[in-house]
């Protein structure tokens, strides 16, 4: 186990290092940096001013030098300065994380509360009209773009209450906050629930075919006991891995949904920073996303070994 953990950690570090190099290089091979954008907007400006600004921002150094400066800073918790706001990148990023984390957490809960029971029902009632209907619902859930679902929810809001749900930094009460987050969280979570439902259904069908279920049935166990006491427990194991897949899935949904609902979280911030070529923000945010995805996948693998005693990570 210790050997496995060491090897796995080394691979994770290698992956993160690879991402840092790729993202850093990608952002710098682009013709036109933030200085060009600023100066284009201002019209003609003295080239000497431009060179001075590039030197101030460290953009005149070679790419490997710039990379070393970034990684060196990261090691000290110094993420550099946002080109746009000129504030420390860490100060720009940190306050936005809880907003996105709340949204992501609620979307995850929503997708599991909706996806798991519907997936189980679909499997237990396999090949009935209910199963077909639920499968169609989940397939259409996967076909809707998350941002369009968000726009439809906005429309429904406007039609029924004639107001648009607006994000506020200081909601009046807990219930206001819950409502404020739950509408966009439902938009993100619906798509994920379709994914959860499909995987729960197939995992449940797999388990229901196994010998021990037949044994239970021949012993005279009731259908309910078979489905929920015998099958569901084992069917839940593969569903845990969905959380790993969902992490990546959710981030995509959060990016567009925060944009639709005008929520000032990290996901929308990433898009804004990309548009502005605000490198320090983009590279740190992309690394943040990569760390989360890699860490979640690692935790899911560990959780899987804990839940399923047959799985042992050897050396």
């Amino acid at each position, binding site marked *: 186990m210790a050997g496995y953990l060491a090897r796995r950690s080394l*691979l994770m570090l*290698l*992956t*993160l290092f*690879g*991402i840092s190099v*790729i*993202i850093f290089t*990608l*952002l710098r*091979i*682009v*013709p036109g940096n933030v200085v060009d954008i600023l100066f284009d907007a201002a019209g003609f400006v003295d080239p000497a001013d431009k060179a001075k600004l590039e030197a101030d921002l460290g953009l005149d150094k070679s790419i490997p030098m710039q990379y070393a400066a970034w990684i060196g800073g990261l090691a000290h918790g110094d993420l550099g300065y946002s080109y746009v706001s000129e504030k420390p990148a860490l100060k720009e990023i940190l306050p936005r994380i809880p907003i996105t984390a709340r949204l992501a957490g609620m979307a995850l809960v929503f997708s599991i509360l909706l996806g798991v029971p519907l997936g189980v029902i679909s499997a237990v009632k396999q090949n009935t009209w209910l199963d077909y209907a639920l499968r169609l619902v989940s*397939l*259409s859930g*996967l*076909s*809707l*773009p*998350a*941002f*369009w679902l968000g*726009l*439809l929810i*906005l*429309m429904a809001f*406007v039609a029924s209450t004639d107001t*648009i749900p607006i994000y506020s930094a200081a909601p009046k009460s807990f219930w206001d906050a819950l409502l404020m987050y739950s509408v966009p969280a439902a938009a993100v979570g619906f798509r994920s629930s379709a994914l959860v439902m*499909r*995987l729960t*259904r*197939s995992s449940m*069908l797999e388990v229901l*075919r196994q010998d021990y279920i037949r044994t239970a049935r021949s012993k005279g166990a009731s259908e309910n006991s078979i489905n929920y006491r015998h099958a569901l427990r084992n069917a839940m194991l593969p569903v845990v891995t969905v959380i790993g897949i969902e992490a*990546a*899935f959710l*981030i*995509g949904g959060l*990016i*567009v949904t925060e*944009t*639709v609902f*005008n929520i000032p979280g990290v996901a929308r911030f*990433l*898009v804004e920073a*990309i*548009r502005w*070529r605000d490198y320090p923000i*983009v590279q740190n945010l*992309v690394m943040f*996303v*990569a760390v989360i*995805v*890699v860490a979640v996948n690692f935790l899911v693998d560990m959780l899987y070994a804990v839940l399923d005693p047959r799985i042992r990570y050897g050396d």
Partner: protein
Amino acid sequence: MATSVKTSEYAAELSRAGADVGGRWSAALFLARRYPLGAIGAAIMLVFVFAAVFAEFLTVHDPLSTNSALSLAHPDAHYWMGADNFGRDVYSRIVYGARISLAVGIGSTALGCLFGVALGLLSGYLSGWVDLLIQRIIDILQALPLLVLALVMAAALGPSLQNVIIAIAIPLIPYVARVIRANTLALRELPFVEAARATGMSDMRIALRHVLPNTLAPLIVLATAQLGSAILVEASLSFLGLGIPEPYPSWGRMLSESAAEYVRTAPWLVIFPGIAISLLVFGTNLLGDALRDILDPRQRT
């Protein structure tokens, strides 16, 4: 193993159906009857392909010409889906938009599959340090969500149709490479590959002539699924303003132009492009599910 028995039954029934009437059409008809949802998916996709190919003949108004008198015109007998804020015909833009969606979807899927298959075959067949290296590349590409990597790539490459196709193709590569690698690893140990090796065939030839054709079934299933996600990613990129540039009518950008401000005043600008995206992706998903059941019965969900 109930599924494999069933599959051979289908195959037997399929060949009977084919033998009775003779010809491919009866086989297609048999499959359509056996998998009605897949047939519906294929039909939906054909409608969009038809719209993309014959867009000139299916529309009256130019998708790009603006007319301030028509700004935000309601849907009526002439402008079936209304007009946008520049007075452009929404129906024409949606029909022409099918070209963009399908071009980006098919282009990036094909490109992603090409590189994914090459990497998967190389790493599965050669193993050793090549395999290790390719696996690390796959790890790296997969550690970022599809949309995040596509966003950064699209921003780095700059806005153009061709660059959007590349930006979406690259994040698709690892998913294809992984499946092809797993398949190649399994095939490599089978007797027919060993036999080919015994006859002195080169590795390259074995990989291309014997291993590759046998990975075609999972590849087709995977490509159909990727097509749907590629179309969705294009829509998202364009919605976020980092996808297809003007003047191409892209469904995703139609929604970003209309977004929140028209939700109240011009709902047709929000509804129709969204239906177009969802319907096309729904079609690919239906077809993909049916293809998986037909070609790859072990992976049923």
